[in-house]
């Protein structure tokens, strides 16, 4: 960084240093090129996506013919009918449906226990990311009367040692069960009835019929937490378990039952397909909290079996608004043409991609990025990832649901065989999933972009930051030394003794400002926690309080800490301080982005798209106003627009406007969004408050800097 200082002293530095100096001295061109290349590479990702393949040989999907027979299915059908009719006839007891499920499991020869839980209020825990999930045990107050009751069935594997398990989850609302939920229970039941009889099972099977009256996620989370925190001594356990079945008094297992570590978990759902698809559609949801994904092999297995075995159409979520955008279409055409040209040059260059494929890929990629960046899990499978279990939600969307009474067996058979195939594959596993990727983005169910590829756009975007920081730093120190030389010549009396100047520590002053602002970011992060303690306040009030409190705390911090220290010898270059300040800001933005890219890549990628141009462009407006050229006015205009756009609330509303339209947007929405982020412990929230917002404030500070 400081090599530039003694550039003149050393006649020929080493080549690598010369290269660095060259890059630093041309930092403007380099950063423009890098940023453009970064954005271009991001748009190129769908083209670079590879086809998925099953990496773990032990999985062997589809190698055995499905064993699920019509017998199982007809039994499941009877069960579904009972569930559906049960719902209509009795409203008297709330435990009835669980009891029905439990009774059926016992009849099949499985073990059952009930897990009684309280809906837990999501609490903000900013350190959650750095700690183990087991620490989330919170003392609840048991005054709440509406328990949820999960029914958990177990099959002990005849060939296993009981140390591993596969989990099936069927969320259903015990108060009001829909047809789809009943059918998902039916699918699980059919599998269960098959698996109690098979001999090949090497891992225990757990069927969690999760009571989703307080939300699917909460039910599964409560059960998993209990599963992973064995309590010794037994005090206060009775709350969670019911020893005897509530209605009949029949004796069940006393303990909270467990099987071994979970190899994988499948969440099964059935919904009513409203689309005009000729085949049934299988929707896959995989995003867990903070952009974590299950191992790609799990998705591959499900995809392979669904497409090749059951003839389902597999879909992953897409960002619909991108599908008919003109610029994407023209970009797709460009890539198609380029691909054709490349193939005509060398037939082995096979990266051509059709326009439709490109648009689909981009829409999927955008949705994948968006969901990962939010850091909010897309379904109950998200909880499992917190315990290092690979899980996925399989949502079978069938148009036959409406008239299922006529042909229900087909759906049950199809879904059941699919799940059976997946379980059979996972059953073959010797270790946990580790062969394939954990860090990837999907562009379609069978195409993915791995970490090695998607890091490139990010690296290109972030690369200018250290370079510009170094160049500004070198610039500032050169200017300072120039000034000192001048001073020395003006005071010839002291010229024989060069003073001890803290030349290389001059950045401390700028670092202080940057530190204060980042510290303020931490304060802003914690404020909503205290605001949420105030009961029943409207989102708008909360938002306004938050903003006011934040602004005032910034002022207070500035007064308390800002005036505390000044180094006398560092004050005489006030005019050029902003270059140092910008340099330190950029260095910290770079550090923040790099760390975030490790925690949640998608957030960092999106953050970099906003933060990098804003930080690099910022320059005092007065300097531009003094220059009075077209270029400087353009730059000032750009600066103002960028800073306005990337103020987090403004960004949120713009983003929302682009996606769904601003017609029914309210100002309080932003608060709701933020609240949802922090109740899910999303690292994105911490990123926005502790990296993005401070950098934004520092950019504004640079813009209004008095020169």
């Amino acid at each position: 960084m400081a090599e530039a200082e003694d550039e003149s002293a050393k006649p020929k530095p080493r080549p690598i240093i010369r290269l660095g100096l060259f890059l630093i001295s041309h930092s403007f061109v380099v950063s423009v090129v890098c940023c453009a290349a970064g954005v271009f590479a991001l748009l190129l990702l769908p083209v670079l996506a590879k086809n998925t393949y099953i990496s773990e040989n032990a999985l062997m999907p589809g190698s055995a013919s499905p064993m699920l027979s019509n017998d199982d299915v007809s039994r499941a059908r009877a069960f579904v009918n009972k569930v559906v009719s049960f719902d209509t006839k009795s409203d008297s007891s709330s435990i009835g449906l669980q009891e029905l499920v439990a009774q059926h499991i016992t009849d099949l020869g499985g073990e059952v226990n009930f897990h009684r839980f309280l809906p837990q209020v999501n609490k903000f825990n900013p350190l959650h990311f750095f700690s183990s999930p087991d620490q989330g045990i919170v003392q609840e107050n048991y005054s709440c009367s509406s328990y949820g009751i999960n029914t958990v069935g177990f099959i002990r594997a005849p060939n296993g040692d009981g140390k591993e398990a596969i989990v099936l989850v069927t969320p259903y609302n015990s108060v009001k069960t829909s047809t789809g939920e009943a059918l998902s229970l039916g699918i699980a039941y059919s599998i269960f009835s098959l698996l109690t009889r098979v001999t090949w099972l090497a891992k225990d099977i757990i069927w969690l019929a999760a009571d989703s009256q307080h939300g699917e996620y909460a039910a599964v989370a409560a059960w998993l937490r209990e599963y992973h925190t064995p309590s010794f001594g037994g005090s206060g356990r009775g709350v969670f378990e019911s020893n005897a079945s509530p209605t009949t008094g029949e004796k069940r297992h006393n303990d909270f039952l467990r099987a071994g570590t979970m190899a994988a978990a499948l969440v099964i759902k059935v919904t009513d397909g409203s689309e005009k698809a000729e085949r049934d559609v299988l929707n896959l949801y995989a995003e867990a909290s903070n952009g974590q994904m299950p191992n790609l092999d799990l998705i591959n297995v499900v995809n392979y079996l669904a497409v090749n075995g059951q003839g389902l159409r597999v879909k992953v979520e897409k960002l619909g608004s991108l599908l008919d955008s003109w610029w994407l279409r023209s970009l797709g055409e460009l890539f198609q043409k380029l691909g054709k040209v490349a193939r005509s040059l060398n037939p082995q260059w096979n990266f051509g991609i059709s326009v439709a494929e490109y648009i689909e890929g981009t829409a999927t990629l955008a949705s994948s990025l968006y969901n990962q960046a939010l850091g909010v899990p897309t379904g109950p499978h998200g909880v499992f990832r917190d315990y290092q279990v690979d899980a996925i939600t399989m949502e079978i969307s069938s148009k036959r649901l409406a008239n299922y009474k006529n042909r229900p067996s087909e759906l049950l058979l199809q879904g059941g065989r699919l799940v059976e195939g997946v379980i059979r594959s996972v059953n073959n596993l010797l270790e946990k999933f580790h062969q394939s990727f954990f860090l990837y983005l999907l562009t379609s169910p069978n195409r993915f972009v791995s970490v090695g590829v998607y890091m490139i756009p990010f690296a290109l975007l972030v690369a200018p930051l250290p370079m510009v920081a170094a160049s500004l730093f070198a610039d500032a120190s050169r200017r300072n030394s120039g000034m000192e030389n001048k001073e020395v010549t003006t005071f010839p009396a002291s010229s024989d003794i060069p003073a001890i100047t803290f030349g290389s520590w001059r950045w401390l002053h700028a670092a202080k400002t940057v530190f204060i602002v980042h510290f303020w970011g931490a304060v802003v992060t914690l404020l909503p926690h205290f605001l949420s303690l105030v009961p029943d306040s409207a989102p708008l009030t909360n938002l306004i309080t938050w903003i006011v409190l934040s602004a005032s705390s910034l002022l207070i911090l500035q007064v308390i800490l800002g005036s505390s220290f000044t180094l006398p010898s560092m004050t005489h270059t006030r005019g050029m301080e902003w270059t140092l300040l910008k340099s330190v800001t950029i260095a910290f933005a770079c550090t923040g982005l790099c760390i975030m890219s490790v925690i949640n890549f998608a957030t960092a990628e999106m953050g970099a798209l906003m933060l990098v141009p804003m930080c690099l462009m910022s320059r005092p407006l007065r300097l531009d106003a003094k220059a009075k050229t077209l270029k400087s006015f353009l730059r000032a205009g750009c600066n103002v627009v960028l800073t306005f756009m990337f103020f987090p609330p403004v960004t949120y509303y713009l983003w929302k406007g682009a996606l769904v339209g601003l017609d029914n947007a309210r100002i309080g929405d932003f608060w709701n969004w933020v609240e949802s982020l922090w109740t899910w412990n999303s690292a994105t929230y911490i990123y926005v408050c502790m990296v993005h917002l401070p950098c934004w404030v520092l950019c504004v500070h640079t813009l209004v800097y008095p020169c």
Partner: protein
Amino acid sequence: MKEEKQQNISTKKPRFWRWTVASIIFRLILIYFPKNLNLATRPEVSTPVTSLRRLAEGYWLTQSLMSPYAGSMYHGSPLLLSVLGPLTMKKIEEQPFHLLCSLVSVIADFICAMLIRATGLKLRMTYCERLKLLGLGKLFEVSEILPSEDIAALVYLWNPFTIVTCVGFNTTPVENLFIILSLYGACIRVAPLAAFGWVIASHLSLYPAILIIPVILLLGNGPDATPRKLFLMCKKDEDDSSSKGRVEQNGLKELKSFSWKPVVLFFVWAFIWTLYVLVLCGIFMRNYGGLSEMFRRTYGFILTVKDLSPNIGVLWYFFAEVFEFFRNFFLIVFHVNILFMILPLAIRLKHRPCFLAFVYMAICSMLKPYPSVGDSALYLALLALFFNELAEMQFSFFLFCGYVGVSLLSPVMHNLWIWRGTGNANFYFATGMAYACFQIVLVVESVSAMLNHDRKIRKLVAAT
């Protein structure tokens, strides 16, 4: 790290006390929330050698009449066990267990900072004196000499590494205290105190043993022994000048000899203290296998790198990978590595013993088998003692960013590997390597800045 640099700029005395008190209060607030921070289990903070949780385990074992070293849980000194052990069990008025031990850490930190301040004051006074003697009094007119002792003390107190170590329930603050104590004792040339600090520090964590060289130099030469050549040069120039030359000659005479008396005294006292410590340990260990067992379980554990659980150093990864039959060879290589550097550095930096101590501590914390951020806290504070001399140090901003980046990235990588399962050991080890690299750059840059400073002074002396 960041905050600590802010403190560098403070100047006035009342402000110093205000910030000292603030740092103590900050610590006291933090030790009430140990569960939320969960620092005691972080590999960056507590190592197998320094963890107080292990010490509590060892104490519990002795309570049930077993050897504290049974079960390979505790690896510290028996003395620490008998002093801190009861505190880990004691409970005052429904407060959590850790409170008393944490209070000991806070007090140790405070004393440490005060000792650093006293050492720094002594160093700065001698530095200014020497400059005046060399006829460089003008230097004070054009540039001001910052109160580096205050800066160093505040750097120590507000360094996040120190705070984290203090709150993190381990014995590092106490070990640091004895290291500083020995340096302080040597600086004010009180041989018994220096010997006491040195013996206890070496007994607790073995590596401070190499501080014997800076301590001897300090005792023999005084805190800032300017090379004699400089005075000769100075004298030659001003041979004809009347009064000033005489003063300097007097100064020269004063400086000339390496005084052996305090050094001999130091050795005598070191012998006495060692004997004392060994006798105490022997009494403690008489039922558990004697002193040899203690040496095997403490120093043996450190030197043979038995525990390969991940930490911020580089040795755990290396010894997890190395073939068993090469193990002894590489153990020797790594430890000789430290010893090899002792002599050349001592020759080159013999005129600045305190700075030499900083370099030794930095090198140790790089090559230790079980390093923690507490070691960095110590050497960073020692570095800040030379804030005036290192004014022209290069790459300071780069190093600062590096330390901040690594200390944030390291827990994230650890989380990715251990809790999320999406990363692997290489992720975490990479941050350990980066940390080691930054430490190397820091040492290299600070040493070269120090030598440049000396060169500059020599030039100035030659010019006048």
